[in-house]
C-alpha cells in the first residue's frame, strides 16, 4: 500500500470480497534527513496508507526495506547509468523487491498472495501456466514493468485493479469512501523526485562524473561532457553541441567515456538483443516467433520476430526500423495483450 489510489482500492476491493487482508507499506529510504522526500512512500503517503487501512478495517504495517531497496533497486540504477545504460528501476523493484523480499515476508505472515495496485492482469491457463496480460486500461497498463516476474512470482501475485480503468478505480475509491480517491498519480521515479537522475547518480557514485568526449559518427570531437551518466540513447536536449540539424545520442561507451551523436535517422535500428530474458506465457520458443515488441514504457509495440539465444538471451528483429533502442531498458514481447516474455536490452 503506497498510499495512492490504486493500491488503496486494491486492498479495499479484496477486503470487501471477504479476503483476509494485511496492509503492508514499504519504507524505501530514510525519511528523517533533510533531503527532499520522494514522490511515493513519503511520510505523507504512509499516513494515507495507514488511514485507508483503518477505513477498510485491516491491520497495517510498514516494513523497513531501506537496505534491500538500496541493495537491489538503487545500486542497479546507479550501476546502469555508470555503465552508459538507461535503467528501469520500477521493473527491478517489482521482481527483486515487491515480489521477492516483500512476498517472502508476506508468506511468513501466512499470506497466500501479494496484491498490488498494478494495472495488469494475471491469470492461470488451463494447462497451469500463469499468464500476464495488459490492463483493461491501455493508458495505464503496467505489464511492461512486470515482465520479469517468474511463474512462482506470478502464482502469488494479484492485481485487483488490473481489470479496471483508472476512472473506474477512482469511482470505486469514491464509492468506498476512501480519502485518496482524488489523489494525483505519482509520475517520477520515486527516489528521484526532482527528476534529476544525473545529479542523483553523481551523489551516490561520485566516480561517474568523469569527463569524456562527444563525437560525431566519424569520430570527430564536437564537445566535452561531465560523465556518461548524463546521457540516454535518443536524447536530444542538453548535449551542449549544435549542428545544422538536431543531434541525438546514438551510443554511449562507458569505458572510454565517449558519447556518439548523430542525426535523427541514425537512431533507427532493426535488431536488438536482450539478456536476462524471462519467458512468461511460453517456454523459450525453439524457432523464430512472430510477436510485437515494446522497447520503452510509452512505446507502441512494433511487429517483428523473436528468437531465443543461449544463456537467457534473445534476439528480436523488427519488421520496420525503430528509433532509439536504449540499452538498459526492457524489451517486452506481446501477443496482443498477452505478455510472451521480455528481457533487458543489451
Amino acid at each position: 500500500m503506497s498510499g495512492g489510489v490504486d493500491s488503496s482500492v486494491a486492498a479495499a476491493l479484496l477486503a470487501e470480497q471477504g479476503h483476509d487482508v494485511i496492509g503492508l507499506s514499504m519504507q524505501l529510504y530514510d525519511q528523517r534527513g533533510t533531503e527532499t522526500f520522494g514522490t511515493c512512500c513519503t511520510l505523507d503517503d504512509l499516513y494515507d496508507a495507514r488511514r485507508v487501512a483503518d477505513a477498510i478495517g485491516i491491520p497495517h504495517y510498514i516494513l523497513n526495506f531501506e537496505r534491500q531497496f538500496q541493495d537491489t533497486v538503487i545500486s542497479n540504477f546507479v550501476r546502469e547509468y555508470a555503465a552508459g545504460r538507461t535503467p528501469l528501476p520500477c521493473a527491478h523493484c517489482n521482481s527483486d523487491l515487491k515480489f521477492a523480499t516483500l512476498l517472502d515476508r508476506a508468506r511468513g505472515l501466512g499470506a497466500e498472495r501479494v496484491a498490488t495496485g498494478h494495472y495488469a492482469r494475471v491469470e492461470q491457463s488451463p494447462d497451469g501456466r500463469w499468464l500476464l496480460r495488459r490492463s483493461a486500461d491501455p493508458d495505464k497498463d503496467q505489464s511492461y514493468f512486470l515482465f520479469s516476474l517468474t511463474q512462482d512470482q506470478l502464482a502469488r501475485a494479484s492485481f485487483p485493479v488490473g481489470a479496471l480503468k483508472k476512472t473506474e478505480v477512482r469511482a470505486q475509491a469514491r464509492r468506498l469512501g476512501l480519502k485518496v480517491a482524488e489523489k494525483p498519480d505519482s509520475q517520477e521515479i520515486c527516489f528521484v523526485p526532482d527528476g534529476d537522475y544525473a545529479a542523483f547518480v553523481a551523489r551516490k557514485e561520485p566516480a561517474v562524473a568523469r569527463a569524456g568526449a562527444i563525437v560525431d559518427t566519424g569520430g570527430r570531437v564536437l564537445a566535452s561532457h561531465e560523465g556518461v551518466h548524463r546521457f540516454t540513447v535518443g536524447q536530444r536536449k542538453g548535449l551542449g553541441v549544435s549542428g545544422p540539424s538536431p543531434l541525438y545520442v546514438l551510443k554511449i561507451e562507458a569505458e572510454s567515456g565517449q558519447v556518439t551523436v548523430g542525426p535523427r535517422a541514425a537512431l533507427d535500428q532493426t535488431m536488438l538483443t536482450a539478456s536476462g530474458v524471462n519467458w512468461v506465457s511460453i517456454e523459450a520458443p525453439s524457432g523464430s516467433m512472430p510477436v510485437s515488441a515494446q522497447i520503452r514504457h510509452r512505446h507502441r509495440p512494433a511487429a517483428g520476430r523473436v528468437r531465443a539465444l543461449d544463456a537467457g538471451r534473445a534476439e528480436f528483429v523488427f519488421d520496420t526500423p525503430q528509433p532509439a533502442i536504449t540499452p538498459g531498458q526492457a524489451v517486452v514481447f506481446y501477443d496482443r495483450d498477452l505478455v510472451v516474455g521480455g528481457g533487458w536490452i543489451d
Partner: protein
Amino acid sequence: MQRIYFDHNATTPVLPPVVDAMAAALREEFGNPSSVHHFGQRAKAVIDQARSSVAALIGADPSEVVFTSGGTEGDNFAIRGTAEALGPSGRRHLIGTTIEHEAVLNTLKALGKRGWEITLLPVGETGIVSPDALKAALRDDTALVSVMHANNEIGTIQPIAELARLARERGAHFHTDAVQTAGKIPIDVKALGLDLLSISAHKFYGPKGVGAIWIRRGLRLLPNVTGGKQERNRRAGTENVAGIAGMGAAAELARAKMAEESARVAPLRDRLEAGILKAVHGTLVNGAVSARVPNTTNISFDRIEAESLLIALDLEGIAVSTGSACSSGTLEPSHVLKAMGFPAHRTQNSIRFSLGASSTAADVDRVIAVLPGIVDKLRNLTRTPVRA
C-alpha cells in the same frame, strides 16, 4: 481475538481508579490552579495532592517535584537546564551513555552541535555502565552526567548510586531518566544521592502527556519552558490538572502494589524467558539477567527479522516490540544492542517482552506455545535469512 499485551515498557493501560481521578478532575475541578478564588484553590489542591503522591513514590519532598508533559520533557529540562545554568561558568562538558533513550541522546547531540562537549559512556555486553568508565570520563568542566536508571529495551538496572557519587564529587550534576523504573522498583532519590530524576506517568498505569522531574532542593537549573510562575517558577504554563490528578492516583497505586506486583511479575517473566529459550532453538537473552527490572526480557531469535516476528505475533494477537521505532513506525536496528557490541544481525533480530499488571501465567504459556510455529514459518520462508 483474545489479545495479549506484552509491551508495558512502551506504555501501560490506565487503571480504572486513575481514570476515575482524572474524570473527577475534568468534571469538577475546572479552575485555573493559579487563580486566587475558590475554583483555583480547588484545582490547586488536586495538584498538591498529586505532588505528594508522586514525591512519595520516589522518596522526595513534594516541593522538589515539578510536573512536566512527560519523560522527554523531563530529560530535556534536566540536560538543557543544567547546561544553561552551568555553561556560563565554564562547565561545558556533558556525559551520557550509549544506551540512553533518544530523549537524552538526541538532546545531548543537539547541545553537541551548539558547542558543548559530549561524552557517551560505553557499555559491555551486559548492558551495564561501569563506574570506572565514568571516573575516566569526568572532567573539571563536566556539568552533567545523565545515566538512565534502567534501560527501556533490555531492562538492565544501572549502578546509579555509585555513578551519582562519582559525578557529584567532581561538582557535576547527576540526572537519571527513571522512566522505566518508577513504579517497578523502589526509588529513593536521597539514598541514591541524585540531583535530578525524570519520570513519566504512562509507564506506571497513568495517562500519557504528563510526567514529573525531581529537582534536588537548591540545585541550579534554568527553566526550559518560560512564561508564568507555575510550578515555583520552574515550569511555566497552566497545569494539566486532570493529567496530574491521574499521575498522582497512579503513583499511589504503584507505591501500594509495587512489592506484591514485582513478586508476581518477575516469576512470570522468568517463566516466559525460560519457556522461549527451551521451546525455540537459536535464542539468546540480551543483557545481564542479574540486574533487571522485574518485567522485561529481551531475546534474540537466530535467523529472524524482528520486524517480521513482531508483525506475525501481532496478527496472532500478541503485542511485543523491538528497539526504537523511527518516524514512519518502521523498525531500526537497536542502538542499545549495537552499543553492547553485538553484530549487526543481532541488533535486528531481538524482541522485547515487557509484562505488567494484566499479565497472567496463561498469557505466558500461550506465547510460549505459539512462538515456535511462527518462528519456524518465518525461518523457512525468509529468502535472505539473518544469521545470529
